[in-house]
């Protein structure tokens, strides 16, 4: 099953390289087509895979460490606080290259705020963390709304940005994100068993030898950093982090040793597919924001799973 899925993923990667505004025959490509393939299409496909994996991985970790099947980049405030920086950068007309940096900046500020708010007596409380995240979300959204209201000329840019998409992709950004993904993935898989213990109540996990508080903090910080980096480059792409871990759990069990891998893989698969659709659904080179497609694809699939095998997602 694992091999099959990896094979399917690689096949999708290859196939989606050939889908886009211009159909490219890889065996008879003109120089310009070859260049489009190598310097635009390929990095973009790989980038969508990396971002999808980042979102899937962060969702998987969020849901377990925050003990909430609805935890994802939205409920923790990570997505909207990152979006805030980008929106302000667009509204003030900063050069395009500075947009991801601004997004990362506010994303990290949001992370620290939520983290400190949810820490009482040096103990991280998962429920407080979600509450703090939701509050962060509300505050960031209100500032974003203000920016949309006040900077009318930037309105369409802001709206398009918020819908998510792979705007400008080059190899250096791709390498940066891939490095962030790889490091976090290795950090998480090295602690997969520890993370499993977080499925138990806090006292049981602690007496099994897990420093619950420290593990939860580390996991939260890394997961949020993943989201901040992803959002800063692609805008807000929802539902991947929420749905993919549940699907992975339903198909391959809850064990984090499996779930970390499959959440990343399925996240990558979903986003590669969604981006291929967004690139090609409108003929002539126009694009549909990818966030719309992930929400639609993911939502419909989730509904199907919810009806057919709900008990495998979470109890209740």
């Amino acid at each position: 099953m694992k091999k099959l899925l990896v094979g399917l993923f690689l096949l999708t990667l290859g196939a989606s390289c050939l889908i886009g505004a211009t159909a490219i025959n890889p065996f008879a490509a003109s120089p310009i087509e070859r260049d489009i393939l190598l310097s635009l299409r390929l990095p973009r496909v790989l980038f969508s895979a990396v971002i999808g994996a980042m979102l899937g991985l962060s969702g998987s970790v969020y849901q377990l460490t925050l003990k909430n099947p609805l935890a994802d980049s939205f409920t923790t405030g990570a997505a909207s606080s990152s979006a805030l920086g980008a929106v302000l950068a667009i509204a003030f007309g900063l050069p395009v290259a500075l947009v991801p940096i601004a997004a990362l900046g506010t994303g990290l500020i949001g992370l620290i705020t939520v983290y400190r708010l949810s820490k009482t007596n040096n103990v991280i409380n998962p429920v407080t963390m979600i509450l703090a995240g939701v509050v962060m979300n509300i505050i960031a959204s209100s500032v974003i709304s203000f920016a949309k209201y006040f900077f009318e000329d930037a309105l369409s840019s802001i709206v398009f940005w918020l819908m998510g998409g792979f705007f400008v992709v080059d190899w250096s950004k791709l390498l940066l994100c891939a490095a962030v993904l790889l490091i976090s993935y290795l950090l998480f898989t090295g602690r997969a068993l520890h993370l499993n213990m977080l499925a138990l109540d806090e006292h049981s996990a602690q007496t099994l030898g897990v420093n619950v508080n420290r593990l939860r903090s580390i996991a939260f910080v890394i997961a949020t950093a993943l989201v901040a980096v992803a959002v800063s480059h692609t805008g807000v792409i929802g539902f991947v982090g929420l749905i993919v871990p549940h699907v992975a759990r339903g198909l391959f069990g809850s064990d984090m040793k499996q779930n970390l891998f499959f959440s990343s893989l399925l996240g990558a698969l979903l986003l590669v597919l969604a981006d291929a659709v967004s690139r090609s659904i409108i003929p002539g080179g126009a694009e549909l924001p990818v966030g719309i497609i992930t929400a639609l694809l993911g939502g419909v699939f989730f509904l199907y799973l919810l009806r057919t095998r709900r008990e495998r997602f979470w109890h209740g």
Partner: protein
Amino acid sequence: MAELRVSKLHFKRGTFCLALDDITIVQGEKVAILGENGSGKSTLLQLLCGLLSGHGRISYDGRILKNIPVAERALLFALLTQTSEVIFPFSVEEVVRFGRFPHAQGNNFSDEDDELTEHHLNMLDLSALRDRHFSQLSGGEQRRVMLARVLNQKAPIIYLDEPNASLDIRHTLDIFELLTSREETVIAPVHDINLAERFFDRFLLLKRGTLLADVKRDQLTPELLTETYDVQVACGAAAFTFQHQ
């Protein structure tokens, strides 16, 4: 082997205060903690597990609890909490295997871990349920799974917070017989005085945060229990008594 020693323990939270002078529990003792609701039974358990920290000294084999890293504590004692939850669908077998976590090398369980898991699944009559999800089980079944996990941890001291909660009488007998026949030290708050008296051999009687008495079975008198619970306790034949067939 593990010897638990508590001295000058003092813990305060709000208006509640727990203070204990000296207790030493040696390997293999079966200790029941008796006391009314709010007398500090669970708090004492959490202090002994290092889940709460108070003043005073708790040591295992001479090592002070605070100085023992969390990972090493799991090799000294295991805890069955009063209520247990497992978020997300983990199978019975997976949850029982969690008990081997302190012994796992890196990310992998050894063959020995698998054998012990198998052993404890059988011991608690869970083999037939092994692939079911924990959350799909009844309260009593969940209790047995968690007990199997705790035993699977193979710690010399086992703390059980009301071990027979939500168990029927047959499984209660099974489990108390099982627990008290083993080598491990068992320390458990128990609500049912008759069961406690029948299976345990040492009793810590708590009242409003202080240790009223620390007695062996033959010293557990109705007068002492009357004082502990503020109800008239008499010794006599119960309406029903229970025995395995």
